[in-house]
């Protein structure tokens, strides 16, 4: 058995932010006060039945939880496996991101802060944050790499429609990693009244732990749901990994089960698979770096997975061998995207299409015929339809 004695899942309020050798809190001293306050507020709120009741009732009555588990009958037949999807794509705003932002927006109010800032890559986390801000009456500014504002112009408009300000970040590679840098810089200057709502299980402690707690509802719902369907835990639990929040939220309930856990990264951004340990964006984790430790850019068809690092919990789960991380290329993803649409009537986001691409490739190989497989469908593909149409030459 894997030794999970260091696994923070066993520890409640006094988790120190270390996932084995990973995690920690590598931040400018100016932010220390705010991050300590956030940690204390989160721990108190998480133990407060009133907070939890509010959080869950918003997720249910506004967010659309619980999300169902759907069996893919047609794909199961053609792949020779039993494939089930955890339907986070049916959530309000179209992805699992809402689980996290509702939690952090409520914490913002609990701390007496009036403004929330966020980074976004594809715009999903930005739209979710703008939504939570509108719902709860907070001011909101979203930082987005200039390149991404061009690639995802419609999401920029959505955020503005929701009443948020969007700042195009022109430094560095003008993508997600630079949007994170800029949000951190801004946070240093306005930390008194502003909360930084990080969009994945990354950043300085308590973020990786806190965001995992807000996302673990995915696996906590899915485990009994799939047990009700197949009378057992599935052989494989699979999720795509950008920063790693939908995967961490899915895996958590299964860490001590018999299920094999597999995170799927894009080939051009495989931070667990090809990265090396480093300390960037507040945490010690795995990052794609050059020979001197400069952070490199990630490249993939899905902007939501274009992050050259990964949350520390995944570095840890990989190091202890409890989860396994695989990668797929853009071509495999594009064909999985179309396959799910045609065979099940579900247009997936490009991010979870990575998980499906791995399953399609490995059915009958690493995933033996007859296996039961649970895939987290972390988001819907509306946001990606235009990108894919261009890639398939539809508009030419």
């Amino acid at each position, binding site marked *: 058995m894997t030794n999970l004695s260091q696994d923070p899942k066993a520890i409640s309020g006094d988790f120190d932010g270390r996932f084995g050798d990973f995690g920690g809190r*590598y931040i400018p*001293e100016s932010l220390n006060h705010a991050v300590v306050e956030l940690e204390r507020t989160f721990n108190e709120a998480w133990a407060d039945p009133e907070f939890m009741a509010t959080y869950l009732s918003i997720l249910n009555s506004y967010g659309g939880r619980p999300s169902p588990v759907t069996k893919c009958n047609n794909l199961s037949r053609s792949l020779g496996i039993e494939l089930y999807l955890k339907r986070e794509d049916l959530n309000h705003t179209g992805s699992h991101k809402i689980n996290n932002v509702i939690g952090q927006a409520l914490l913002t109010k609990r701390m007496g802060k009036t403004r929330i800032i966020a980074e976004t890559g594809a715009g999903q986390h930005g739209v979710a944050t703008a939504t939570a801000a509108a719902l709860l009456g907070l001011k909101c500014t979203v930082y987005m790499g200039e390149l991404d504002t061009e690639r995802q112009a419609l999401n920029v408009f959505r955020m503005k429609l929701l009443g948020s300000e969007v700042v195009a970040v022109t*430094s560095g590679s003008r993508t997600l990693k630079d949007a994170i840098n800029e949000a951190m810089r801004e946070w240093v*200057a306005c930390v008194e009244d502003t909360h930084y709502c990080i969009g994945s299980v990354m950043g300085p402690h308590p973020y990786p732990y806190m965001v995992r707690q807000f996302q673990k509802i995915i696996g906590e719902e899915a485990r009994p749901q799939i047990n009700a369907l197949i009378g057992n835990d599935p052989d494989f639990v699979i999720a795509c990994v950008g920063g790693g929040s939908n995967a961490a939220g899915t895996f958590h309930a299964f860490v001590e089960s018999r299920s094999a856990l597999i995170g799927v990264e894009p080939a051009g951004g495989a931070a667990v698979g090809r990265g090396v340990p*480093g300390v*960037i964006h507040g945490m010690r984790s795995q990052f794609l770096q050059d020979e*001197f*430790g400069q*952070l490199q850019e990630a490249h993939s068809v899905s902007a939501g997975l274009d992050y050259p690092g990964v949350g520390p919990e995944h570095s840890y789960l990989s190091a202890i061998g409890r989860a396994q991380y695989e990668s797929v290329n853009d071509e495999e993803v594009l064909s999985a995207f179309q396959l799910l649409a045609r065979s099940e009537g579900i247009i997936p986001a490009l991010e979870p299409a990575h998980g499906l691409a791995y399953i399609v490739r490995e059915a009958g190989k690493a995933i033996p015929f007859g296996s039961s497989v649970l895939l987290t469908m972390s988001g819907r593909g509306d946001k990606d339809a235009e990108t894919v149409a261009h890639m398939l030459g539809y508009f030419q």
Partner: protein
Amino acid sequence: MGEILIENETSCSLEVRLRSQRAKGRKILVPYVTGGYDDSWLETIQAIAEAGADAIEIGIPFSDPIMDGPIIQAASQQALDRGVTPASIFAQLEKLDIDVPLIAMTYCNLVFHSGFERFGGWLSMGGVTGTIFPDLPLEESHKWSDYAESIGIANILLVAPTSSISRSQEIASASRGFVYGVGLMGVTGIRASLAESASKVASSLKAITDRVVLVGIGISTPQQAKEVAQVSDGVIVGSALVKRLLDGEGPNGAYAFISSLRSGLDDL
């Protein structure tokens, strides 16, 4: 509480040097230059040493500088685009012949990625006697600070306007070389007026430690430097200098600007 901690004498040459400058009644001036921003950067360092700098911070360009504003970001990017690496900067510093201590300022991934021995070797080769990592706070700093001290290098820690008194005390105690008071809540950059927090952080540090207290971030003019140094032991000036360098003022412009800061401080 309320008592000034007398820190043990240290073997770090940087600290010995700065303490002795202070003992002479001199206000300490530490300019910052981004390493490798253009071809003349070593001459610029030579010039600011001659203009009266007491130590010089060399920025080692990093891809993701979260504590830096637009000016230093631009200088770092310009250096990275020129192909500058930590190794190339330290190798060039080795050629420098000045009697002013050098401090490397960068982000902690560069030291963790290279490993302490390799990075420490570069520092020693370049004649660097201090390090500043704005993303390596007290709790995470001990391993590097201990290693650095063992090779005669001072790891300098930062205190922010939001640090409590007891935390500031701990940081000042663990810091070597000097203690860096962050003058305002924000990243590096030029500010039209001096933040109130600059003198506040200086006076609260002076009340709790006998280490050399220098204040940096947002200090852009001789007048601002003078105002802070009435309370602190000296100042660190970065963006205001780097802006002039990015504008092409070169070593001569750097000399003139640092001289003006020097004479402002010498008036005190």
